[in-house]
């Protein structure tokens, strides 16, 4: 166990997988000399050289498609899309090529491709640079969508992604890159996809989150415990697709109440899917409708106060919980 920042846990996962498997290589904008716009690849160029840590032109569609091609030829590419906002210019490659070729070809080919991207708002980057599109990716069959909340999970899940024969979209919240946590050293510790984690046990209400929202949920749970004598169980989904609804249902059947928290826009967001599944499969256990605490349905404003108001906060979670009692 070592205490690492999220960005360092991510780098360690990539480094270990590159040492383990010489088919693994990294490609992206400014991942080399610049060290990665969020410093996740810093130092890897010096260690592995410019062929395995490849700086690319600003051509997201081109490099994601190139990743698909390299994967078809048996390599294990990791493409860093600097931020999820730029994945929109590459979406056709992700959806119409990466996610479908295994099925379309009748199982003849598969696409072991890891797509890392930084996501989330809160840094006053404005409307085009503050997206949380995890739910959009989770909608496409053939994709695996990973959204870690802690450094240890980030490392175990990213290493797992490198060993998967299918395309994995690995989404990192920019607000968490500096967050610290204990990370196991064992280079073969993988975390399986589709296994949610109960990060805080509780009895009165189930609060479901992923990535950044797990932390809002946990802070809210503390407030509820200290200020209101309520015990909230916090569940971290860790992967949106496959979704571990079983763990969520088991909890809700005990607590009889659920709140789903996410940064993304509420309307048509992933929280709606989770809420719908809870209702469909735990209807008779619910004492109140499943609540959603999510982003305001507005393009992200630059102004700090407006942005804060547009994003979900622990206070919003606390309110939602108190409202359902």
């Amino acid at each position: 166990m070592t205490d690492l920042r999220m960005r360092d846990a991510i780098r360690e996962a990539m480094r270990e997988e590159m040492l383990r498997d010489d088919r693994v290589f990294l490609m992206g904008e400014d991942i080399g000399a610049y060290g990665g716009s969020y410093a996740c690849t810093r130092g890897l160029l010096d260690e592995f050289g410019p062929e395995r840590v490849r700086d690319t032109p600003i051509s997201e569609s081109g490099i994601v498609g190139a990743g698909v091609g390299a994967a078809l030829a048996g390599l294990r590419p990791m493409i860093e899309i600097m931020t999820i906002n730029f994945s929109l210019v590459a979406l056709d490659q992700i959806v119409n090529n990466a996610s479908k070729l295994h099925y379309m070809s009748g199982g003849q080919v598969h696409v072991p491709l890891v797509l890392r991207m930084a996501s989330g708002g809160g840094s006053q980057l404005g409307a085009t640079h503050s997206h949380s599109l995890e739910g959009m990716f989770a909608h496409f069959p053939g994709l695996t969508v990973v959204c870690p909340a802690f450094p240890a999970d980030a490392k175990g899940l990213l290493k797992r992604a490198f060993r998967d024969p299918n395309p994995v979209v690995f989404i990192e919240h920019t607000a968490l890159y500096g967050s610290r946590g204990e990370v196991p050293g064992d280079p073969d510790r993988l975390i399986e996809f589709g296994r949610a984690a109960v990060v805080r046990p509780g009895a009165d209400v189930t609060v479901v989150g992923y990535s950044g929202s797990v932390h809002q949920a946990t802070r809210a749970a503390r407030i509820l415990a200290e200020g209101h004598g309520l015990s909230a169980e916090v569940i971290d989904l860790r992967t949106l697709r496959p979704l571990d609804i079983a763990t969520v249902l088991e909890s809700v059947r005990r607590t009889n109440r659920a709140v789903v928290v996410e940064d993304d826009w509420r309307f048509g967001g992933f929280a709606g899917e989770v809420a719908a599944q809870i209702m469909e499969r735990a209807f008779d256990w619910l004492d109140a409708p499943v609540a959603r605490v999510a982003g305001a349905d507005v393009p992200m404003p630059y102004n700090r106060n407006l942005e804060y108001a547009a994003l979900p906060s622990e206070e919003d979670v606390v309110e939602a919980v108190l409202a359902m009692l």
Partner: protein
Amino acid sequence: MSVGQAAPVAAGETPDGDLQERFLYEMLLIRRFEEKSAEMYTRGKIRGFLHLYTGEEACAVGAVNALRASDKIVTHYRDHGHAIARGIEPRRIMAELFARVDGTNHGRGGSMHIFDVERGFLGGYAIVAGHMPIAVGLGLAASMRREDWATLCIFGDGGVGEGEFHEALNLAAIWKLPVVWFCENNGYGMGVPFDDSLANDVYKIAAAYRMPSIRIDGMDVLEVYSATRLALAHCREGNGPYFIEALTYRYRGHSMADPELYRTKAEVEMFRQRDAIQRLKRSMIAAGFLDEPAYEALVARVDTEIDDAVAFADASPEPGLHTLYDHITKERERGIE
């Protein structure tokens, strides 16, 4: 559109009689396959989109025959000709068009997405230009592994309008990748004349990325063959990508749904006069490589093979409903190494 000047290719070794006969056979096979497919489409045996290659046979046969077994191909949705030229049995392609289990993709892909990984045929793609970046990745894999196989990326003139054309050519050029870009310029992107779509000739735009770029007569199979060989040699020597614009023409509509409001019968007739099959037949007879009886024998062989393909396809069962969820993701257990 006028079929352009000959390519600056060292004439060099013209293929011998046997190889020319093979070209002739394959072109006849493709044409018959397409005619039969059209018939099967009208009879409801084939559905969805069906884009026929009739008229463009010389491109597939000339270019694909220049490849080695280790080379890879990615192409667009108008892919039957390339698949046949690569040696994929017409019966398995026809079975795919019929959506049956013995089809190349077991009935999941259809006409636009023929795959045969055994033959390095890494697919037909239906998002225009969407496969061009994939060719970059294949080239990258070959170059990173220091292997000497090349990738042939076939696309249409319409694909040149897409941004991915630019991104892919630029990446292949700056990384000196072994990719032969093969543009089948048949004069139209659906109903839009090529000349209205691009500010310059395709091969001149490609030249701006500092790769050798030539325009050839895509209705002369011998020219296509020698030009593609030259391009492949260039790639294998580590000189980076090579661009070929082959001028050709499709005799039929864009797809079976095309009302063809955008061109005249006379224009089609003009190109039929330049038919690549008849042209090769004439020159082979002149060279003493072929005579009428031999030609008739070839045609007869082709007919039998295509009739067999239809019979095979028709006899093949449809995939069972229980397979609906197969192959969404490769099983993870087997996946973990």
